């Protein structure tokens, strides 16, 4: 479903080249729900942007639904994202001038799906996320947790191959955070949709069956999870992961 092959990325800062990702290699199977864990500056956001086709890696290949998105131009990537990728943002990013239902429909508008079909599908998803009665309201009339449910519904409407959730509970209180994670897990199970959840919160990662950890641009090997990060990094370690969480390693810089 999602496969990264030797993905490296560098930024240029004047004459200086700063390598932020080193030979990242892993694979996520269809229907899996994984956490991409890392502290601030670990490279997880950069990796998310690369996987979502918002940036191109300096080296390597990224396959989603068996298509190498690195080769695609901007317009083709837009079409690809429309069909295969869903997004859940930390700050929900709903369009304030559209109603809840219209926000959910939006990705289908870009696919020129008929209004009646869009409406039906949006309402189904809103019911599934428990906010069907809020369809006619505007985002400003909803709580943070409700807005994130709208965002989740919107990410699912195109039935994407993979959904990237960037710190989806970052703006929420603990109770709401639990609700949102529960909803995503339920949807993952019922719809068999692949989720990649980027987070720096151990509590969130702990609820996923699989975790990929990044530290200073490298994939962290399971045996290194306990070793403190160089330079006093506040990256989490495996010892803090709850029991039952599966972390795989298949050689240097590679997790599957």
């Amino acid at each position, binding site marked *: 479903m999602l496969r990264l092959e030797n993905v490296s990325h560098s930024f240029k800062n004047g004459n200086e080249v700063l390598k932020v990702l080193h030979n990242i290699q892993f694979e996520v199977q269809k229907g899996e729900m994984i956490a991409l864990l890392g502290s601030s500056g670990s490279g997880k956001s950069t990796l998310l942007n690369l996987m979502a086709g*918002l940036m191109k890696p300096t080296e390597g290949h990224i396959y989603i639904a068996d298509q190498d998105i690195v080769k695609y131009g*901007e317009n083709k990537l*837009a*079409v690809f994202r429309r069909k295969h990728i869903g997004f859940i943002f930390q700050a929900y990013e709903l*369009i304030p*001038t*559209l109603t809840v239902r219209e926000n959910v429909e939006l990705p289908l508008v870009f696919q020129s799906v008929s209004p009646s079909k869009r409406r039906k599908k949006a309402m189904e998803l809103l019911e599934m996320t428990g906010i069907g009665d809020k369809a006619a309201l505007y985002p400003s009339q909803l709580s943070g947790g409700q807005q994130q449910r709208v965002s989740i519904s919107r990410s699912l409407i195109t039935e994407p191959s993979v959904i990237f959730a960037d710190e989806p509970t970052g703006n929420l209180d603990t109770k709401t955070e639990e609700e949102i994670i529960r909803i995503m897990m339920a949807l993952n199970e019922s719809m068999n949709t692949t989720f990649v959840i980027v987070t720096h919160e151990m509590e969130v990662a702990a609820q996923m069956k699989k975790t990929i950890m990044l530290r200073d641009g490298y994939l962290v090997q399971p045996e290194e999870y306990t070793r403190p990060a160089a330079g006093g990094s506040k990256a989490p370690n495996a010892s803090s992961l709850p029991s039952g969480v599966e972390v795989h390693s298949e050689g240097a810089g590679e997790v599957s």
Partner: protein
Amino acid sequence: MRLAWGQIKRRKVVTALCMTGISIGCAAIIVAISIGNAAQGYLETEIIGGMKLDEITVTPQGSSGPGEGGGAAGGERGLLTDDKVQVIQGFNHVKSVIATKQLGYFRSISSDNLISEGVNVVAVDLSKLKEQGQRFKEGGALEQIGAVVLNYGATTGWKDAETSERLTNMMNTDPNNPKLWEEFQMYEGTVTDMSGKSIQLEQMDNEKKLLGPQMYVGGVLDVPTGREAQFAIYDRQAYVSFDTAEWLADSLNLQNGTASKQRVYDSVTVKVDDLQNIKPLEDLISKLALNASDNLAMRDQIASQLDTFKAIALGVGVFILLLASISIIVAMTMSTHQRRRQIGIMKVLGANMPQIRNMFIVEASLLGLLGGLLGIVFAYLIINGLNSFITASAGMSGLQIAVTLGTLPIGIAFAVMTGILSGIYPAISAARTNALLAIKRD
């Protein structure tokens, strides 16, 4: 569309500013076209209509105008004689021929001692007055000698002898007195029922007043079609038959104009069946050693001046719209920058460049459309104001400006086009927004 409309509703101040700019331009265009149309209509009915385009005026060769009776300058050859009138009447495409002879301006005194200071007496075949488009308000054309037909203007301006003398004296002693002019205008505009009355013409002969024989007002004409009564009062004509004219000339010692055996005329009005036959007929008439003139050139000149006026007015409207378009470009560009994050989100959700671009263009064209609709309201208000002003101040009730339905789509089209053209740059700029940079949070 829904997204664009949402933005328009949400950004009320920007929307209001853009709409105001466009509406002023749109209103300017609608008002300009409406004024142009009204002026054209007014010119056609009041001026060009009065010109009688289907007529050729034939005068004796060598004469500079009516009243000279085809005098000696043109010789016998250039005279406008009965024979020539017969020939003209026989030409193809001639509908009617009406010959006239001017006897001149006379002071007139009525049987009930009212005085009119100046009436132009014209000899004409009275039975042909209707052919000229004249309508009788009272009476008709009597054949007997001494019968006269007054036009509408000739029934105005009659005053009793005392008032007439008082006003004449005041005009000599106190010509700047506004009350004098007010009273004068009042008498000039007052219509007197002259039908059935007798009138006498007064002629100065060697500083001696010579009073003509009693004449009978057998008919009074109505205001000519297409003319305003307020302007018709200045055209004072008394029509008599040729026999009556000769009778008057003998009585008042008037010059009959020629020693020719046959009757000669000052002018002949030839009505033509179609405007395109005017020039060929004029060529034929010229071969009879006569002058022929028409009003087509004058009409073309007026039409050309009107076109220039309309073009200038339209130019002013377009210029205002251009200025308004700057406000849209600024507002939309500002909007693009403020909505960068939203644009980024849409791109992440799968919107491609044309979709983002179209969304902004739709938004700009909606602004244009709303501005255009507001412009129509403004145009109606401006035109109502102008009409009130024209009626109240200029007294030209015939010149009423109306917003015709045909001008509304033109105004709206200009407004929407301005919106679209102004929205192109911001739309392209929005479409080029880098999604990643746009969604990045500081």
